[in-house]
């Protein structure tokens, strides 16, 4: 899938330093692609390369068949010749211009006599009618963000780049702006690249996630797929999956279709993943919604599925949710992270030091190639060895 074959944006960037880049991605017209990764992973640098604000050592950027960058053939269009709309993290509105003047400043291709009317129409679209003549300092964070969006759209761009556009507004405004972005997307059929380090925001707004680490694209796909089927342990950690462990494949069964693995706490039945031969060392992950707490008052049907007993080591109340860490019985180095509604925790008397039992659903356990080193900078714990 490349830019030449279809409308949309495609790019390939390589750079050794100062910000390393080894990114390859594409975004179709009408699609929202979220770039997700920790600070310094190169998210904003990729946006800057697309906009022409940063020249990578080598690479190409194509949009709707137009070549914006091709280092092999010496093509590198300046930002003003790439029709992109960009919303900066702090909006970068011109403080000496009113809202409408900010929008008009990007209408370089529109005849001067039409600019004011068109800018007012754009501001109305982002629900800012009546505030056209205000300077940015007199607008709220959410209103400034809307002016920035209107200014980005004023060029009639081929692609829209959003660099953490929601990071500077409060939670309520953020939710409102999320809805407005979804609304805008229906009206403007163009590739939208959203940079964020808020995984929930990315999963909610984007059609696809692209996970970045040290400038390299590790995995891209629909949010649910990336979150439930990470390509490797690093991606699992970057999408905040905490239950990553090591194991060894023991058997591949045809009927019922299962893969058996062994980890320090015993054997586990796993959704069949035949690409891992018996004897292969693997990393495996189980998303929190695939860990079922056994009820104390009465047993349930799922309890026979990969039961794991242990003791609650930590218990944290986060609003209506309880976040607990369980030490697997006899193995304090094996820590399972669980979340559950507060009433479930109360009913099952979940508290520090209490013994509990959970089931790991076979369907939710995902195997990944074993990696000798697990980078610590992803901010997660090391998987427990076998």
């Amino acid at each position, binding site marked *: 899938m490349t830019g030449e074959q279809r409308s949309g944006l495609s790019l390939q960037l390589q750079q050794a330093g100062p910000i390393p880049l080894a990114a390859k991605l594409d975004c179709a017209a009408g699609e929202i692609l979220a770039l997700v990764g920790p600070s310094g992973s190169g998210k904003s640098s990729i946006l800057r390369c697309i906009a022409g*604000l940063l020249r990578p050592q080598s690479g190409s950027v194509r949009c709707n068949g137009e070549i914006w960058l091709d280092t092999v053939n010496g093509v590198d269009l300046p930002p*003003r010749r790439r*029709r*992109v709309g960009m919303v900066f993290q702090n909006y*970068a*509105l011109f403080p*000496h211009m009113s809202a409408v003047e900010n929008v008009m400043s*990007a209408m370089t291709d529109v005849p001067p006599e039409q600019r004011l009317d068109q800018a007012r129409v754009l501001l109305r679209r982002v629900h800012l009618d009546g505030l056209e003549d205000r300077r940015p300092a007199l607008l709220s964070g959410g209103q400034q963000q809307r002016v920035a969006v209107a*200014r980005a759209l004023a*060029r009639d761009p081929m692609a829209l780049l959003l660099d953490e556009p929601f990071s500077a507004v409060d939670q309520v405004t953020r939710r409102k702006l999320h809805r407005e972005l979804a609304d805008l997307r229906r009206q403007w059929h163009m590739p939208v690249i959203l940079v964020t380090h808020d995984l929930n925001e990315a999963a909610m707004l984007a059609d696809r996630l692209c996970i970045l680490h040290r400038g390299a694209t590790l995995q891209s796909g629909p949010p649910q797929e990336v979150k439930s089927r990470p390509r490797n342990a690093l991606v699992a950690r970057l999408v905040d999956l905490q239950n990553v462990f090591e194991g060894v494949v023991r058997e591949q069964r045809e009927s019922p279709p299962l893969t058996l693995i062994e980890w320090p706490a015993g054997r586990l039945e796993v959704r069949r993943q035949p690409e891992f031969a018996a004897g292969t060392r693997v990393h495996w992950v189980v998303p929190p919604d695939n860990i079922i707490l056994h009820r104390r008052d009465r047993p349930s049907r799922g309890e026979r599925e990969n039961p794991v007993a242990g003791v609650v080591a930590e218990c944290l109340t986060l609003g209506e949710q309880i976040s607990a860490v369980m030490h697997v019985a006899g193995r304090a180095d094996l820590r399972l992270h669980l979340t559950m509604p507060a009433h479930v925790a109360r009913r099952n008397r979940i508290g520090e030091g209490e013994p509990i039992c959970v089931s790991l659903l076979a369907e939710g356990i995902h195997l990944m190639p074993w990696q000798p080193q697990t980078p610590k900078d992803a901010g997660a714990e090391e998987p427990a060895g076998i």
Partner: protein
Amino acid sequence: MDWQALSLSLKLSTWTVIVLLPAGLLLARELAWRRFRGKNLIEATLSLPLVLPPTVLGYYLLVAMGGNAPVGRWYQQWSGHPLVFSFEGLLIASLIFNMPFAVPPMQRALETIPKEMREAAAVCGLSPWRIFRLVELPLAWNGILTAAVLTFAHTLGEFGVVLMVGGSIPGETRTIAIAIYDRVQAFDRDAANSMAALLLALSFVAIVVAQLGGGYLSRRHDR
């Protein structure tokens, strides 16, 4: 009152502002936004006239502009008259001793424009010239005004360098500051008094204009 000296001072100040401001603005942009080897050295050199005794700076300029130095020799061959003790020589000296009054205020003002804002202007499709005119100039106007006023006022009052490089040739190099000195030497206290008072008033007005102008421009962004 030596009107000829006042007129010459105003002429010198005006020409210094006209020549130094655009050149200083280009230099200030480079210093504000680019990182390069030797940047600190350039900044230190620009500030040197602030701490150097005017007679020392004047002496070196006198030597550099003299007929035995390449610059002075070249100028004399080209124009037919020496650079020292001429208005042109005075203007060159004025450009140099005003560097620390012109460049740093503009540099500081430009440094306050976030990089993101200049990048946003580029992404908006503006050409480099339009970015300069529509974004950089209005946002750095405060510093440019300060630079202009300081340069103008400082040129009016400069004494040591002007005396060393220009001497005191009526109508050519005798500025109002030199005229005051001459009048004091000649015990003409009345003339010295009136010229000193005028210089004091002009300098005070210049500083007030810079402050009011700067305050107005920064308030305008908040309205």
